[in-house]
């Protein structure tokens, strides 16, 4: 029955437990963004609109049959890389970085698209080669990963480049890249680190040095991290209460509704709130990985798990940065920070996760 079929798709292609967990996280987000924006209704409505749009993206993504996604993957990836090249050639410079491309109709940031396109592409490639995987295949896959990463790194956008590398790495790792290669990459990374230092921009070096000693420049580079650790620490066990964070409301905390929103949350809800938030992230990751394991195809499994692990990586990097154990990189807290692009990208990713996990019978193995 047509009606039955429709309902069947909507309900089943959405994993209700995961939808529930994501909704809880979005609820936290709404409350925290409201507080961080000084109870601005305008900001609240914009945020709710973003969430609505992102939820539609989630629902749409979950409706896409994985094999259709598989078909379109090279196209999406290829298009993305072209756009990145376009950015490199014609991109607009904003804040010293060339990240945006003006398409005449709208401005887009192609690196956002690559956050999803890269794991899709690597999964697609490994999926194609799953019958006879050779070391050369991994080399090709690494090439597919490095092409957009280098382009993004040169924008420069080190944060995104690193995180996209991570998402690609998750695919390769789950796809069976041998431990020996993984270990040698790790060793190489350690050896290369001092050399890499030379390739870093001044501001990137400063961010890393700042992490080691924020008080070297308390009103300059160290300011963000000092104020955010003060916010987190002064929250104590129980927090200062919703809308009562002094660091937040007296304007000490920078970028408080975007990258540093976790500081707002931790200040107002304390350790208890923070641990609950971590638990919520853990639950989402657990549920997401469970769904990934359920996917019937290698492509589905790799895509879903990589997206979930990337989601986790973003969350960890952001909270690690806010609490002062990682250098400042411009990464929002997924699904909590204010910002439409990230919201849509992440929920679209979860839509794909649900899609590959729920479209079992429609895929032949």
């Amino acid at each position, binding site marked *: 029955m047509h009606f039955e079929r429709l309902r069947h798709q909507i309900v089943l292609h959405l994993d209700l437990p995961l939808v529930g967990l994501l909704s809880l996280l979005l609820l936290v987000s709404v409350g925290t963004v409201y507080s961080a924006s000084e109870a601005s209704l305008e900001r609240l409505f914009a945020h709710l609109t973003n969430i609505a749009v992102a939820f539609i993206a989630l629902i749409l993504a979950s409706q896409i049959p994985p094999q259709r996604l598989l078909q379109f993957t090279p196209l999406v990836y290829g298009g993305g890389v072209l756009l990145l090249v376009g950015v490199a050639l014609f991109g607009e410079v904003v804040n010293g970085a060339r990240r945006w491309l003006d398409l005449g109709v709208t401005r887009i940031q192609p690196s956002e698209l690559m956050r999803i396109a890269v794991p899709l592409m690597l999964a697609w490639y490994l999926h194609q080669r*799953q*019958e*006879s*995987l*050779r*070391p050369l295949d991994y080399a090709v896959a690494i090439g597919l990963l490095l092409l957009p990463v280098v382009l993004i790194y040169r924008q420069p956008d080190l944060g995104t480049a690193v995180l996209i590398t991570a998402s690609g790495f*998750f695919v390769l*790792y*789950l*796809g*069976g890249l041998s431990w020996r290669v993984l270990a040698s990459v790790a060793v190489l990374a350690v050896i290369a680190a001092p050399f890499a230092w030379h390739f870093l921009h001044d501001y990137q070096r400063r961010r890393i040095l700042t992490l080691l000693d924020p008080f070297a420049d308390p009103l300059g580079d160290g300011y963000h991290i000092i*104020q955010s*650790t*003060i*916010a*987190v*620490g*002064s*929250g*104590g*066990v129980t927090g200062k209460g919703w809308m009562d964070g*002094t*660091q937040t409301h*007296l*304007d*000490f905390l920078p970028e408080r509704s975007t990258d540093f929103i976790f500081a707002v949350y*931790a200040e107002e809800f*304390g*350790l208890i709130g*923070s*641990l609950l938030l*971590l638990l919520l*992230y*853990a639950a989402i*990751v*657990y549920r997401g*990985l469970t769904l*990934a*394991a359920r996917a019937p195809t*290698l492509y589905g*499994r*790799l895509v879903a*798990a990589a997206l979930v*692990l990337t989601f*986790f990586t973003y969350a*960890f990097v952001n*909270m*690690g940065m806010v*609490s*002062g*154990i990682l250098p400042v990189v411009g990464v929002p807290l997924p699904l909590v920070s204010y910002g439409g692009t990230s919201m849509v990208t992440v929920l679209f990713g979860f839509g794909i996760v649900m899609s590959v996990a729920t479209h079992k019978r429609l895929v032949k*193995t």
Partner: protein
Amino acid sequence: MPVLRYVTPEESMRLYRRRLEIAGYLALALLLLLCVRLVWLQVIQYEHYHTLAENNRIALIPAPPTRGAIYDRNGVVLASNDATFTLEITPHKVGDITGVLTQLSALVELTPADIRRFKRRLAESKGFESVILRTHLTDAEVARLAVNRYRFPGVEVRARQFRQYPYAAVMAHVVGYLGRISQQDKQQLEIEGSAANYRGTEYIGKAGVEARYERWLHGRTGVEKVEIDSSGRAVRILSRTPPAPGYSIYLHLDAGLQQLATEVFGNYRGALVALDPRNGGVLALVSKPSFDPNLFLDSIDRSTWALLNHPQERPLINRALRGVYPPGSTIKPFMALAGLELGLITPDDSIVDVGYFSLPGSSHRYRDWKRDGHGVVDLKRSIAVSCDTYYYRLAHQMGIEQMHRFLSQFGFGRKTGVDLDGELAGLVPNPEWKRRRFNQPWWPGETIIAGIGQGYMLATPMQLAVATMALANDGVVYQPQLLRAWQDPVTGRMHYAAPRILGRIPLKPENLEVVKQAMVEVTLPGGTAAAAGAGALYAFAGKTGTAQVIGIKQGERYDERRIAAQHRDHALFIAFAPADAPRIAVAVMVENGGSGSGTAAPIARKVIDYWLLGKRPDQTAPIVVPEDEEREDSGLVLEPSESAVSLDESRHAF
């Protein structure tokens, strides 16, 4: 490189699941790392970050209290606060100060003196402090500045309070003055633990009552707890502890009497102290020359400073407390009393004064001031005519030790404990002191001249007044006290300072009577101060004194006209009246005044006339004094209150 073998879907699935599990555990480990970090920040380091957050957001702005006023016994203002609008400039916010000054002078009147003072203050200031350019702006000037405010960033109109001393030089040595808190003051406040109470306060009592009662006058500094944002702007007031204004202080001093005493003192250098013999209250305290305490609120320029430190004039020295002089003949009533009390003489014993005294077996002559002697002299006459020979002889009989003991009882040789700082103790010599000081034995001749208040003995005018007071009130030594009462500005309640008795000298009434009568005879015809005592409407007891400034050689005559002004004798006079029920005791000391009878006694007379009769010297008839119950009251004015005890616990009480 080994070619990877064919992987079955099952194998692929197992590998995938294993790796997924590893990734899951890794994620869990990272989450736990975050948990540890959060526990570290929010639990273990909580206090630290809590403090940092509070420091971030809270600024404490001190609200300095209004300083208590100082009044005389009748509520006449001696020191008050004058609220005024000032024009101030914060140097570091102003680029071209000269240009701004030029522009400002179009809006407000700026005299060259204002500019000069400003430049001086500017040189002394730190760049971020606002520096006063003009005080006492008129309303019109304030309005003009307000309208043009936008043109002058860093230029401000502020309301400030300035201390004012309406009596200026007349009260300078009593009331003292305020000055900017110095580094030393800061250290002292630190030691007292009251540094916090002085945040926001710029001035502190430096001398006089202002210094002595600093703690009461200052009040308690309030504080505004203000929440500030990251740019330092006050967002809202969290709490406000209003400042508690300082206590008002009422002195025993009578402004009218003080004013008059200052006037009648003329241009002499010296001091006058008037005490109330019924309680030790200081009715007048004059030290000449004086200075204008209002000068000290501002920075003093070089030429004024030079004047204030003139080596002979030394106007900053409070001669009433820090001037030590030989008491001269004013010691004689005390010597006579000592002789009577010790049974060395009787009132009726008399001597024949031939003009000098010699120790047995010595040819050295201790000369009487009257070359030919006074003839037959008994005790009363010895005081009335101030016979030196009588006292040379008495001193010889008494010996220095007994003299030392007896005089010490009257407060000589020891600080009187008056509530002003810097008092000197004077000196009543004895052989032990001389051995300590000069490592020399005591010569008998030194005892002889000590009998007429010469030699080593030194007393301050305050000590003379205290001794005179003790004589007047039959042996009660009160601690002289300026503080009469203090008033809580909030409740309006008056607390009265209790009189303090330092000691009671056991004296026989009949002996006292004789000495007092003798002192009255001083001002009667035939006495040394007969001229000054002429026509007194009350029993006027006094004693003249003249203290040598330079030694007169044996056989040489003192001739005032031949001696430079600064080498003339000091003139002294002690007095109390009415002799039968004394209400005032006075000591006058005129440096280089010549003679006690000619210079010092008339000053005392005028002061006592004013006090007892309300008569000013330029008036023929007594003026009507406003009804003042204290003057008529017999010592019940001061109700000792419990708080009086705590007022000055730092000083010893007898």
